[in-house]
């Protein structure tokens, strides 16, 4: 009787375990034909905060929004600017005016036609001081914006502005739903309406965001029916979900990419893609520091750091050496600059030339002051902490004593970087797709909270930055940026360390994926699953 009771207790548990659907295994090797259908489930560590992209500053928000909205222009696979909501555009001879000719027949997801008034509204709301947006900088340079007719929009700048065209890649907002209302409390933040390939379906807080295809999309309906972003805050859990096919796509860490996914079962169901990420990591020097003022000292340190060793040891080879502030597959990148191969002898010679002598204990000194400095790194970033350790070891070999201090992110920025209270720091910059780096390197940008926190000053770089910023001629810009990269490589205000690869695993049934300089998602609309390999037979196709 007692045993029976216990069994009864476990009965519900048994039911739970028994009704588990087995998953069909099929062969994913065949390319098949493009077909409509299936669902893609991605995982995200963070939850989107706000689906009006001009109000959001986090990447999950921007990712979801990028499928819902369009800008006037966009980047193609090779980072060339092509039309999106604008069919074409004319640039006046004086480079001051851009006239956009908009696509006709585009509709918002609620059926309202899209017109130039929507673009005008978007511009107005971005420059409105009452809008809490972080992206108004580019638009404040517009002198005049004008709607010529329903499908023509003209902007005039006070001075030629290089990023002018691509700044109109900003998501255009629906005027008919927003005008006259406070955008920062609009329901569109949670239920967006755009013109893009996917429509918003639902957002369950802390759990997932669901989008469905837009059959009316002006570039044609996307093949995939549904896009689901699941919010999984723990990366270990996310990796287990991937292995259990709970998600179809996830960014992998170097260890996961190289070691933990290197087995047959995984390789049978997933493709791994790789492209250079839009960011680089560097060792920045406080140029006000008496030792770091001297170019030769910085060069010596660059020679003494073995970048290859960092990439092999810390990144498991999932990165390339950085030579400057751009990545090799961008048009602005100049690979023909001074490089600093690991060379202890050169480093020693340069330091000697700079007036350093060796003490008895092997530490270098100048005028009685030992060469010692502290490198700051942010807490939780293992890659950067390990970099600092390797740098510490290499520099100790040439007689420089390095201390490492790990600090929580907010304190690092507010207490040390903003107050210029540091000697050297390991940080990363995101690389903008448009190569305007004025705010990081121009000598006027040294104020509090401004980005030239290392206090870099070089009149030639200043002039080149301004010139490159105020022309629309790509050849001139290219020449300016090439020269800037040469100067930066020579002067080493940073030791540029590496550009990591973005490593993505995607389920094999998704075809048509082509990684390029622009990344992976630029042609998401064209991804498809052949009918025989379809996994989620949704009724989304029947009832949109």
């Amino acid at each position, binding site marked *: 009787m007692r045993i029976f009771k216990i069994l009864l207790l476990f009965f*519900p*548990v048994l039911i*739970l*375990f028994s009704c*588990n659907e087995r998953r069909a295994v099929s062969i994913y090797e065949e390319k098949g034909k493009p077909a409509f259908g299936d*669902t893609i*489930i991605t995982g995200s560590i963070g939850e989107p905060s*706000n689906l009006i992209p001009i*109000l*959001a*500053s986090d990447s999950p*928000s921007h990712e979801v929004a990028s499928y819902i909205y369009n800008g006037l222009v966009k980047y193609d696979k090779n980072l060339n600017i092509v039309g999106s909501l604008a069919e074409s555009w004319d640039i006046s001879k004086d480079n001051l005016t851009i006239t956009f000719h908009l696509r006709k027949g585009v509709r918002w997801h609620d059926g309202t036609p899209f017109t130039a008034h929507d673009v005008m509204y978007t511009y107005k709301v971005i420059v409105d*001081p*009452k809008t*809490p*947006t*972080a*992206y*108004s*900088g580019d638009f*404040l340079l517009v002198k005049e914006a004008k709607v010529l007719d329903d499908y023509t929009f003209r902007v005039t700048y006070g001075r030629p502005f290089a990023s002018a065209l691509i700044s109109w890649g900003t998501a255009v907002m629906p005027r008919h739903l927003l005008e006259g209302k406070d955008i920062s*409390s609009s329901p569109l*933040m949670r239920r967006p309406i755009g013109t893009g390939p996917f429509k918003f379906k639902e957002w*369950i*807080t*802390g*759990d*997932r965001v669901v989008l469905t295809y837009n059959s009316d999309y002006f570039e044609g309906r996307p093949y995939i029916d549904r896009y*689901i972003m*699941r*919010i*999984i*805050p*723990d990366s*270990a*859990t996310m990796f*287990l*979900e991937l292995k*259990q096919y*709970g998600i179809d796509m996830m960014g992998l860490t170097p260890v996961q990419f190289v070691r933990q996914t290197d087995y047959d079962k995984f390789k049978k169901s997933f493709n791994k893609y790789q492209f250079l990420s839009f960011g680089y990591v560097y060792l920045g020097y406080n140029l006000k520091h008496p030792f770091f003022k001297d170019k030769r000292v910085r060069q010596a340190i660059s020679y003494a750091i073995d970048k290859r060793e960092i990439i092999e040891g810390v990144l498991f080879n999932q990165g390339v050496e950085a030579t400057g502030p751009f990545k090799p597959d961008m048009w602005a990148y100049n690979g023909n600059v001074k490089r600093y191969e690991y060379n202890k002898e050169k480093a020693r010679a340069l330091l000697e030339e700079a007036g350093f002598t060796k003490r008895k204990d092997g530490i270098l000194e100048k005028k009685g002051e030992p060469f010692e400095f502290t490198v700051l790194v942010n807490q939780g970033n293992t890659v950067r902490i390990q970099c600092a350790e390797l740098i510490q070891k290499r520099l100790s070999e040439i007689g420089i004593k390095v201390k490492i201090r790990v600090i*929580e*992110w*907010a*304190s690092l*920025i*507010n207490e040390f970087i903003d107050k210029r209270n540091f000697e050297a720091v390991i*940080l990363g*910059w*995101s690389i*903008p797709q448009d190569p*305007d*780096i004025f*705010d*990081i390197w121009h000598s006027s940008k040294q104020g*509090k*909270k*401004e*980005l030239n926190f290392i206090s870099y000053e070089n009149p030639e770089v200043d002039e080149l930055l301004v010139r490159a910023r105020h022309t629309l001629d790509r050849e001139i810009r290219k020449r300016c940026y090439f020269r800037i990269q040469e100067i930066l490589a020579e002067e080493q205000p940073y030791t540029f360390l590496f550009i990591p690869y973005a490593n993505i695993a995607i389920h094999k049934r998704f075809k048509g994926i082509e990684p390029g300089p622009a990344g992976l998602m630029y042609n998401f609309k064209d991804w498809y699953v052949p009918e025989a390999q379809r996994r*989620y037979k*949704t009724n989304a196709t029947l009832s949109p």
Partner: protein
Amino acid sequence: MLRYLLKRLFFMIPMLLGITLVSFLVIHLTPGEPGVLDVEMNPKVTKEVRERIRAFYGLDKPLHIQYWMWLKRIVKLDFGVSFSTDRRPVIDKIKERLPITIGINLISMFLIFVIGIPIGIYCARYKDTILDKGFTAFVFAGYAAPTFWVALLLMMFFGVYLDILPISGLKSFNYDEFTPFGKAMDLAKHLIMPIFISAFGGLAGISRYMKNSLLEVLRQEYITTAYAKGLPEHVVLKRHALRNALLPVITILGLSVPGLIGGSVIFESIFSIPGMGQLFYMSVMARDYPTIMGILVMGAFLTLLGNLLADIMYALADPRIRIGVG
């Protein structure tokens, strides 16, 4: 009694005020600024833009004025609008996460009491037997083992290896297409591991409490008297010992009231459960002051209320204490 109650309730006001003042100061002293400004390393965000956003949130005003503004709102039970970029009312953010957290906490607390108390009783009655030691080892293992580690092991075993339980989340992605029965099953399946983990860790406390308090009671003279009267053992235990031994448990029950709305960050992150722990953690990381303050105020209020509740229940259960109230 009523006067006593009113007095206690009245004294909660200065206490709450003090708590909010200290919390407000502490969170504003932490370096860093609200999430929307946390785009530090983006070259497109200029200083002018930053200043504009600071003014928008009222962060450019002196601290005491900010506190006063917050206080004026909170007395009207207006928790304000979140500083994170979603700009939603704090109360909405809390409301949508509260049911999940309270639900999980109630179930696991129920399990903890239902399993923990019998374990405690057994261990007290059969002290120093092998089974007593076994139970002790088991509950302490649950207490000591790191949640995330046990959780990951379970996920790997039941999720990836056996493939019978979902790894994380609360509902399957196609939840809407299920029948009502299917929905319930889906939810239950998703909850098995999280609830097991959270209950497993809490067994130690309650079972040890129960054991010690029962041992204490069993040493009393009236228990010896009861045995001497020739009462059978289960009557002695149930009618005489247990009633008294359960008193401290009431206190614990009262003290766990604020715990109902608090979720564990680690546990919720691992299982991707959108509960209060995550909300609090994220709002701290994003320096979302109104949300942090909102959760703290609720927590403080419930703690004070829980204490009061424990005292009242205690007084109701134990006449010896009621006399002292006066």
